[in-house]
């Protein structure tokens, strides 16, 4: 039985510590991990909880991130609660196994502390690792601060392990800005948190020899398509369960989460769509702009990046006239992913807001309130002109000459 861990009603935790406390309270059975900045403290802390009796689990320190996720797959198929953490290159190295984990419907929890991908090598936060995982068949939840890193890490277990879901879940936080910034966090009491997450109930347990199971079989053109279709359906069907878990979490914590978060959108004329800590920056910018210049600015943030909340995004943005989609990942010769997905959702309505794309904050480049205000004001200028007056895709916060691509053909 695990030792008792004393918690204050209010703690001062950074995002990494918050996530690791959620792993402790969920009493994760196995963590197979490999260290990488900035996510390392999450698994270090798990190791220290095991070493000091606060968790009755197994900490398996492997020789690479590929092996970390491989060990998680083996452990999860053996019928217990499994989690790990990674960032950036580690995430990239894991990618092969991410697809295998979701294809085998194993409810592993992966705390991803978002960091840029090399080259050039960079340890700071952007969303290129999160975007790399977007087709991997995992549920992806996004946190904007340390409190959310704690809350949503607890929620991930309850979502992924639900027998109607049975999917792995990533819980994202921004490298350094969230992971290494100490903030007030209000934790749940251990028994309340564990009561919420619940006992792990295995499905197709490799250690139940009365019913042998084969994991990771081969399928060719006769069955592969049906398997992948069912996997996609499971992801789409997880939406209502995510909503339920958020409702249940509110009941025990008083804190409310939605698959799409909207701020000041009731009367908004212009909106920014963003992920991660940028959301909070944009909220402050919108609030100040409303006061200072009367710009009706609002913010929309997909809390759930996968399954992508296509309909909720559409509903949230249905009444605005201009939208800036902010992508913190090098788009590699295309428009940013958020721009593409938001535009696609909006296109299915009669509303035809003006949608532009900003690539920003790569490799941890600071994104300021002033920059958010400038983007809001630019959207207002589009609205006043009745058309997009700038390039559709622009790099924001870049040193040197302006970089932008594509002009509107709407008049």
């Amino acid at each position: 039985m695990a030792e008792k861990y004393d918690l204050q009603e209010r703690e001062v935790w950074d995002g990494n510590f918050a996530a690791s406390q959620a792993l402790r309270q969920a009493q994760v059975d196995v963590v197979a991990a490999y260290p990488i900045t900035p996510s390392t403290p999450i698994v270090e802390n798990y190791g220290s909880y095991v070493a000091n009796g606060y968790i009755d689990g197994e900490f398996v320190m492997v020789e690479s991130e590929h092996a970390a996720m491989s060990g998680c797959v083996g452990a999860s198929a053996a019928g217990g609660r499994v989690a790990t953490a990674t960032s950036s290159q580690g995430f990239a190295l894991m990618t092969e196994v991410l697809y295998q984990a979701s294809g085998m419907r194993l409810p592993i929890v992966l705390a991803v502390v978002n960091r840029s991908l090399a080259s050039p090598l960079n340890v700071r936060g952007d969303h290129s690792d999160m975007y790399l995982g977007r087709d991997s068949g995992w549920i992806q939840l996004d946190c904007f601060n340390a409190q959310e890193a704690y809350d949503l890490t607890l929620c991930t277990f309850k979502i992924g392990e639900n027998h109607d879901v049975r999917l792995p879940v990533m819980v994202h936080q921004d490298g350094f800005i969230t992971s290494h910034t100490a903030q007030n966090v209000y934790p749940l009491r251990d028994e309340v948190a564990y009561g919420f997450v619940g006992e792990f109930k295995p499905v197709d347990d490799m250690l139940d020899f009365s019913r042998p199971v084969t994991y990771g079989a081969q399928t060719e053109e006769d069955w592969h398509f049906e398997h992948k279709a069912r996997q996609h359906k499971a992801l789409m069907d997880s939406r209502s369960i995510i909503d339920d878990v958020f409702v249940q979490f509110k009941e025990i914590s008083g804190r409310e989460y939605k698959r799409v978060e909207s701020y000041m959108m009731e009367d908004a004329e212009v909106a920014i769509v963003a992920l991660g800590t940028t959301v909070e920056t944009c909220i402050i910018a919108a609030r100040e702009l409303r006061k200072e210049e009367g710009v009706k600015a609002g913010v929309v943030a997909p809390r759930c990046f996968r399954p992508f909340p296509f309909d909720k995004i559409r509903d949230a943005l249905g009444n605005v006239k201009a939208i800036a989609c902010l992508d913190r990942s090098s788009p590699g010769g295309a428009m940013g992913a958020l721009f593409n997905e938001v535009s696609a959702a909006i296109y299915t309505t009669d509303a035809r807001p003006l949608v532009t794309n900003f690539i920003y904050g790569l490799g941890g480049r600071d994104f300021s309130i002033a920059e958010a205000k400038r983007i809001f004001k630019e959207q207002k200028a589009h609205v006043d002109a009745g058309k997009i007056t700038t390039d559709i895709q622009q790099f924001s916060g870049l040193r040197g000459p302006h970089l932008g691509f594509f002009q509107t053909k709407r008049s």
Partner: protein
Amino acid sequence: MAATSIKNLKEFSTSNDRFEGAHTLCPGCAHSMIVRELMNCTDDNLVIAANTGCLEVSTAVYPFTSWDTSWIHIGFENAATAASGAEAMYKARKRKGSLKDNDAPVKFVAFGGDGSTYDIGFQWLSGAVERGHDFTYICLDNENYANTGGQRSSATPIGATTTTAQAGSHSYGKKEKKKDMIAIMAAHGAPYVAQLAPNKWKSMAKGFQKALETEGPCFINTVSACCTEWRFDPKDTINITDLATDSLIFPIYEIIDGHELNILYRPKNVIKVEDYLAAQGRYKHLFKPENKHIIELIQKDVDNKWNMLQRREEARI
């Protein structure tokens, strides 16, 4: 445990059969003999992990499975790690008492071909052995990437022709010597390491039992003659394996705790490697006059290795 009696081959071959005969391995493939022997030599529950390869693609094609026990395949390289993870979960759940049957003994076994063992999965195997998980890794060594049609691996011997190390007018085939995985795994400090062959079925079963009974990570390299890529008649699998063990190109031995070496089979009449090579199409070109020196080189290497093994056994180091 529950080591199965191994007095009688006929009885042994049908004991506790958890590997179904219905699979799509080539007729004459030694893989199924080795796997069946492993699974028949114990009554304990088995969790089997497999790397991608001939064994995996031939035994778990949805909606069928040949495995009447727990089985998992993730990728080409990570069966050792899948077994590690499952073993860690077993320990955690056993402590908590959450297993379906908390007292039944469970053994963890990983299978890989030589491509996944010597090459792409080398790091994963090394890591799992270094961490000391209680599992047995069995390499089904057929000295090439047979599943993808016969490419060279680092287990392919010098002089063999493969699709990616071809013999031709300017080439005698693979230029590099085979990697010594047994020495490498012994150097990890694994408590039990061995090379075994299915023609010597009794010593193979005993070696498997020893590995399963030994606490900690054990590694066994098994000789798995491949009629398709070595190019011999499928009915001759065991005959070829006899030539392999009697020419000492595949000596049968074990290393305990990284240092105690025991030779498990001493041929009464050692045959020349030439006889072994001549029985396979993959070495046919070596018998051209310009390539004869490679046969001499192989013989010299085999002699040196055998001397070394005998000296180590005698010196108990």
